[in-house]
């Protein structure tokens, strides 16, 4: 009897609930509207865009921009492939290094683990910053204008992720399993590959998603280290286009929408089309991974 009553009151539509619903729907729409504007601008005819500006509902629909993108597939497609390559290689390497590093930290019988944990942890407290990091990577390791510049700096292994994996190991893999495997003669590497990895899949998926997002969206490494357009990722390409435009605008040498041959600036609509293409993978993947990402934030936030 009592339970029925409670349940009833839970489903009750109070005024506050209605207000919450309306507010949250408005927030959600606000989150989506800019993307609608971008997509609609990318399929508006160039003429309309220049004369009437960006609108949510184009009068004259044209797919010229996407045809243009296809025609320019050598530069844009190349940047796109570079993004994919960097994201894949970076994420996989990150996953291996992070999960390997977390394993000795998890082993209580590994005496130096406190020292190592401190070495790791200290990087969360103190950082040399971007300038010092840039000088080290370029002066000592000469990664400027190499593909390594897109993969190595900052994104390859983060202390937060290592701790996330270590905590997962500790909370869900009892050390007695490891002990048993060792008595059976399993090597450490075998234990890592056959026990730790399969048993920690959920957290590994989460950190792979974090790393994958970070690589796909990264623009800093490209802006700092890459001058050779052959190595552009899609975000760096977009960034260069924008910089060229604002550079020219500051010199007042063009009006918007004019295409000048020399710098080969994509037109207004095309720019939006490229930006949209750059987020398609995120749009496609996000619905499937969002619950994992949210879980990761909660675990990371609470522990961190």
């Amino acid at each position, binding site marked *: 009897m009592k339970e029925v009553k*409670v349940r009833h*009151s839970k489903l009750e539509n109070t005024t506050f609930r209605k207000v*919450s*619903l309306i*507010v*949250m*729907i408005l*927030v*959600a729409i606000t*989150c989506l509207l*800019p993307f609608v*504007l971008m997509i609609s*601008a990318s399929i508006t005819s160039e003429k309309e*865009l220049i004369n009437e*500006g*960006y*609108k*949510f509902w184009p009068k004259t629909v044209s797919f010229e921009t996407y045809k243009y993108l296809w025609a320019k597939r050598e530069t844009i497609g190349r940047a796109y492939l570079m993004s994919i390559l960097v994201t894949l290689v970076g994420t996989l390497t990150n996953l291996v*290094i992070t999960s390997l*590093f977390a*394993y*000795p930290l998890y*082993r209580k019988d590994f005496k130096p683990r406190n020292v190592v944990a401190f070495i*790791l*942890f200290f*990087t*969360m*407290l*103190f*950082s*040399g*910053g*971007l*300038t*010092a*990091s840039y*000088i*080290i990577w370029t*002066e000592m390791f000469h990664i400027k204008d190499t593909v390594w510049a897109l993969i*190595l700096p900052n994104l390859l*292994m983060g202390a937060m992720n290592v701790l996330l994996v270590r905590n997962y190991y500790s909370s869900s893999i009892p050390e007695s399993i490891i002990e048993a495997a*060792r008595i059976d003669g399993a090597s450490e*590497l075998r234990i890592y590959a056959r026990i730790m990895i399969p048993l920690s899949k959920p957290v590994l998926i989460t950190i792979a998603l974090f790393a994958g*997002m970070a690589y796909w*969206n990264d*623009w*800093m490494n490209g802006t700092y280290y890459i001058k050779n357009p052959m190595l552009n990722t899609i975000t760096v390409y*977009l960034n260069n286009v*924008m910089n060229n435009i604002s550079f020219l605008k500051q010199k007042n040498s063009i009006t*918007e*929408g004019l295409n000048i041959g020399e710098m080969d600036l994509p037109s207004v609509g095309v720019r939006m089309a490229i*930006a949209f293409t*750059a987020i398609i993978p995120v749009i496609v993947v*996000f*619905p499937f991974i*969002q619950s994992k*990402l*949210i879980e990761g934030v*909660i675990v990371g*936030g609470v522990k961190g």
Partner: protein
Amino acid sequence: MSQEKARIKGNSKRQNHAPLYLMLLPGLAYLIVNNYLPMYGLTIAFRKLDYQKGILRSPIVGFQNFEFLFKTKDAWIMIRNTVGYNIVFILLGIVVAVTIAIFMTEIGKMKVAKVIQPIICFPNMISIIVISYLVYAFLGTNGFINNTILGGQGISWYRESKYWPVILTIVHFWQVAGYSSIIYIATMSGIDAELYEAAKLDGANKMQQIFHITLPLIRPTVILMLLMSVGRIFNSDFGLFLQVPMNSGMLYPTTQTIDTYSYRALMELNDVGKSSATGVFQSVLGFALVVISNLIVRKVDPDSALF
């Protein structure tokens, strides 16, 4: 006999940690290169550059670079902007995130929440470069605001610095509001439902429930988040301040932060001295603040302390 041999073997294996060291190797190497060498790299700020010897071998001269840096007007502007924006972002951020979390918790049982939740987190998944394109679609010469809302007699948004504190605040919250509410939603979901039932029986309305149950119970999370962001008060969201204003020089008075200054000094002016001086300023103060705020966290909520 053979059993004992096996045990000895097992024991000796336990002592042999070489494979474990080997597993640490790639990560340690990376930490040294990516994190510890740059800490050494901070010494650049105290050197007078001599390109013949190389940046890292230039002679140490003391605080010259800092003197140069703090003699400029830029120093005051960038520190003011960085701290100012951060204070607004932190304080308003807590209000916004907690409010969204309360609303989301309220509709949490409805099916539509499962659609809204990912949508409001989505902007946080997008590269700031793409966001700067989105902002441009609204504010550019042909942008939506100038053409449709202001009816053609537009404002040159990218030339007027006075609008940017508002624009950047809106963009920031558009990007992070939903995502930053997650942690509060999680905390609220841990609150015992019976507390609300009891309050209802006592005749408490929704507002009273929020102010007397929800808010007091999420206070530790709020304080924790607050202290963690205070530790980063000299760090700005680099992408937001560099990309969204499109590097427009006219906007520097309100968009220049320590990070963008450091970037521009290094990449555009080739002024390694000033750039690395800002780096030291940021690293040292950041470290001090993290340690101090952690000491406070440890007092407030020992479980949440970083160390």
